[in-house]
């Protein structure tokens, strides 16, 4: 019995051992491994593997390298990989990916990148329309104001226009709170500036603390405990001043929050729309 088991182990280890005849580094096997990494979303390692076989003239491999670099945020490196002949099946997709990379590299200043020297290809109507869409989005990300709605909306289709228009309206008329008004409110009634920017808990606390110190100061002055009265007056004054200052700061933070949420919402919309690009089915 022992002899049989021993023989089986010996035979199995010989049959299933790693042999020299299996070449892991062959282009075919590297591609298989790279495809696996690509479909698993491990774009960094997928790009490394594809790069090993990039000398092979294969548009799909080239396009996958572009996608991989783009997915990990190396947009310029992705665009350096643009090597497509006009008659290739993937040319249109690669062109739009090139434009998307330019946009993602600096979304808030992409609208300035309109020169034809930036593109290693002639912009046809499809890529021109795509570029115009991203220029409109770039305006929404930027700090440029007073752009007419038509200038933003014209590259989009009817369905997309409604959503882009709602972003445009938010950008044009954001629900900021005035720091000046917040400061004035807190000067008149302590805490109301904070309440104005939506910080109700902080506002009520500020009102109670300032009122408490004001009362303590008044009561001690009335009772001729001048030292205590001045200490409470000083503390009350600092809390009063701190609240006015804090209300102005809170209004500024509120503005930063609105801007953050706007940009976050716009980014989410673009991701949901896959940046107006078709979904590639390399992994199906």
């Amino acid at each position, binding site marked *: *019995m*022992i002899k049989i088991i021993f023989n089986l182990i010996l035979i199995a280890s010989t049959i299933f051992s790693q042999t020299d005849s299996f070449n892991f580094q062959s282009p075919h096997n590297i591609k298989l491994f790279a495809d696996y990494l690509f479909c698993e979303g491990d774009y960094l390692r997928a790009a490394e593997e594809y790069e090993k076989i990039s000398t092979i003239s294969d548009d799909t491999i080239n396009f996958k390298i572009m996608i991989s670099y783009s997915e990990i945020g190396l947009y310029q490196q992705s665009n350096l990989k643009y090597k497509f002949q006009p008659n290739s099946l993937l040319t249109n997709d690669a062109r739009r990916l090139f434009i998307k990379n330019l946009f993602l590299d600096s979304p808030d200043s992409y609208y300035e990148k309109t020169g034809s020297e930036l593109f290693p290809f002639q912009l046809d109507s499809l890529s021109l329309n795509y570029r115009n869409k991203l220029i409109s989005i770039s305006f929404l990300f930027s700090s440029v104001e007073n752009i007419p709605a038509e200038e933003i909306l014209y590259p989009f289709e009817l369905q997309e226009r409604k959503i882009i228009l709602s972003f445009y309206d938010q950008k044009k008329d954001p629900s900021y709170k005035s720091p000046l008004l917040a400061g004035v409110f807190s000067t008149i009634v302590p805490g109301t500036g904070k309440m104005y920017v939506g*910080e*109700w*808990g*902080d506002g*009520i*606390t*500020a009102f109670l*603390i300032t009122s408490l110190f004001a009362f303590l100061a008044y009561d001690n002055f009335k009772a001729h405990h001048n030292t205590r009265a001045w200490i409470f007056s000083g503390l009350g004054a*600092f*809390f009063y*001043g*701190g*609240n006015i*200052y*804090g209300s*102005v*700061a809170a209004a*500024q*933070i509120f*503005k*930063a*929050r609105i*801007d*953050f949420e706007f940009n*976050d919402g716009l980014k989410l919309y673009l991701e949901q729309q896959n940046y107006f690009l078709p979904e590639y089915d390399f992994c199906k």
Partner: protein
Amino acid sequence: MQSKLILLFLFLISSSAFSQLDQFKWKEAFISYEKPSEFRDREYSFDSENPFDFIKKSFANAYWFFISDVDGDNCPFRPSCSSFFMQSINETDIFQASMMFFDRFTRDMNFTKALSNYPKVKSGYYYDPPQNYTLNRSKIRYLPSTYVVDE
């Protein structure tokens, strides 16, 4: 008989493989569940010759001695109120830093601050950096409350 021999052999191997070694003996583990408190390691000395630093350190020492140490490690924010004040002075000036500090102190006393939109650091404290309160818009870095800051 053979199966008994195999079992005996396996038993001998496992007892040798997982035996207690001379270099590493099993012993009682001394685990401390005590929360480390930073305020016990405070540096109260005045080691700077700069008069401005002397004033700054005096304020910080007074705050630690009269408020922080008495209150214990209870500040829910990071940086803590005294660190916030020191950092505020470095960011602005003593007057503006005082305003920032009293505003922070008011927010600290707010019982409903959990409802506010503070992000948290990994240790669970609310993240509230002084840079957001300098009135310089370019320094404000808004983070949503769902964000966890790697302190």
